[in-house]
């Protein structure tokens, strides 16, 4: 198998969510001298981007997104230590959590999978995340983005509380804040002072990347 064949096979097997094949091909590639970044950026990430595009078009469904994401995660677990050794740059760090008072996590977990698939380093604080836990997470992990999920109209006001506390702690300008969840709208995101909103997992990845690119451009300008 040439390296090009491996890239092509990795892309195809990730797309259909064949986890054992994706892990095997990844190991074969590394043993044959391919760099971990090549495998990640030329095969795995483009495959998950394709999954996201198909999902947005309505050609792919939630279980397909999940199995592709899981296949990618398996390979990523193997690649991560190697990537750390080579000092490859990640797309960004994303700190995620469902707000206090809310235990819903299916949507949040989907977003996590798609973010990992896009090359983000995702730190998931779980459900019922209180403002002080978000703040501790920001201090510990220095994320580029903080994502908050809420599924209920009663728990959505926690976005505002969290953003207020993050601002009070003097950390607001260090992070991009994104919000989401079934009842959340763009208008609501604007009202609470979030930087971004997405209605589904795939759009969330696109917006996360855009917001990071904008912020980095603003910093370097």
């Amino acid at each position, binding site marked *: 198998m040439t390296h090009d064949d491996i890239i092509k096979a990795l892309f195809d097997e990730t797309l259909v969510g064949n986890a054992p094949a994706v892990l095997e091909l990844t190991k074969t590639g590394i043993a044959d001298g391919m760099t971990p970044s090549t495998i990640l950026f030329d095969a795995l990430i483009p495959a998950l981007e394709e999954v996201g595009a198909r999902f947005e078009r309505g050609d792919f*469904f*939630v*279980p397909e997104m*999940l199995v592709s994401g899981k296949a990618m995660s398996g390979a990523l677990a193997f690649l991560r230590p190697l990537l750390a050794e080579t000092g490859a740059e990640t797309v960004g760090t994303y700190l995620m959590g469902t707000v206090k008072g809310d*235990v*819903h*996590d*299916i949507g949040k*977990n*989907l977003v996590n999978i798609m973010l990992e698939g896009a090359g983000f380093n995702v730190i998931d604080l779980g*459900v*019922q995340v209180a403002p002080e836990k978000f703040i501790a997470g920001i201090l510990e992990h220095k994320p580029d983005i903080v994502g908050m999920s809420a599924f*209920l*109209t*009663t*728990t*959505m006001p926690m976005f505002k509380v969290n953003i207020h506390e993050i601002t009070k702690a003097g950390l607001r300008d260090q992070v991009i804040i994104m919000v989401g969840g*079934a*009842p*959340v*709208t763009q*208008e*609501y995101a604007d*009202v609470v002072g979030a930087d971004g909103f997405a209605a589904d997992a795939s759009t969330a990845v696109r917006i996360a990347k855009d917001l990071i690119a904008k912020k980095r451009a603003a910093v370097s300008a």
Partner: protein
Amino acid sequence: MHTVLSSPGQTVTIGHDQPFCIIGERINPTGRKKFQLQLREGDLSAIEKDVVDQIAGGANVLDVNMGVPLTDEPALLSKAITLIQSITDVPICIDSSIIEALQAGLETYQGKALVNSVTGEDDRMELVLPLIKKHGAAIIALPNDETGIPATAAERMVITEKIVRAVEKHGIPLEDLVIDPLAMTVGADPEAVKITLETIYLIREKWGLNMTLGASNISFGLPYRHALNAAFLPAAMSHGLTSAVMDCRTPLIVESVRAADLLLGLDPWGSNWITRFRAMEAAKTAAASEKGV
């Protein structure tokens, strides 16, 4: 065990020996952008069509949720209930996670309402159950708590036990407790529906309580959801589910529920089924003769 709901002109009985109780899910702004905008401007006119369509589709009870962000939900819910009760005698399921909205809804509603919902969290039960007791309403309770949505039937049973004790402590008869065994999408977890079915079975065996759930959840993220919903409900019914907050505007789904009623002995001698068939035939004949003219 019978949970009896009522309006000034109608009574609905939920029970293991009764035909399945269909609670129409449609009056809910979540995921309906246009409806959200209308409600925010105080325009409730879309509700009238939802009421008519759902009753025509076979709803026995109507769920009413006015969870629009950035509005006065208690006032909106109260207004919606008054409007619906001026159109129909079909009883209402008052749906909100905001206590003030539940309170406003209960104060407005004429009759005995079903309230959707309370969780097994102590502080929520302490707030909601006295309201239920005061108004003599029935309550839907979800067996999840502060720590999350339990992944196993056994854990859901533990929280249900806790809910049963709290309901008894507040002097509410168990007839007026309806457990929601939690339905999640099978698209995100292949075991999700199996766990729900197991929970339904265990709750029926242990307490004989009535149960309801958000039936459309199970097919979230999947194509051709109607067929999945239509397959799920009869399976849930055979495990002991006695009602569902569900899509009743899709004939396929309602027909599978009514077919299951007959197959499970809840529609003796098929009298409802046959009446339904005759009504459909009559409608077809009427439509054909209209075309002929």
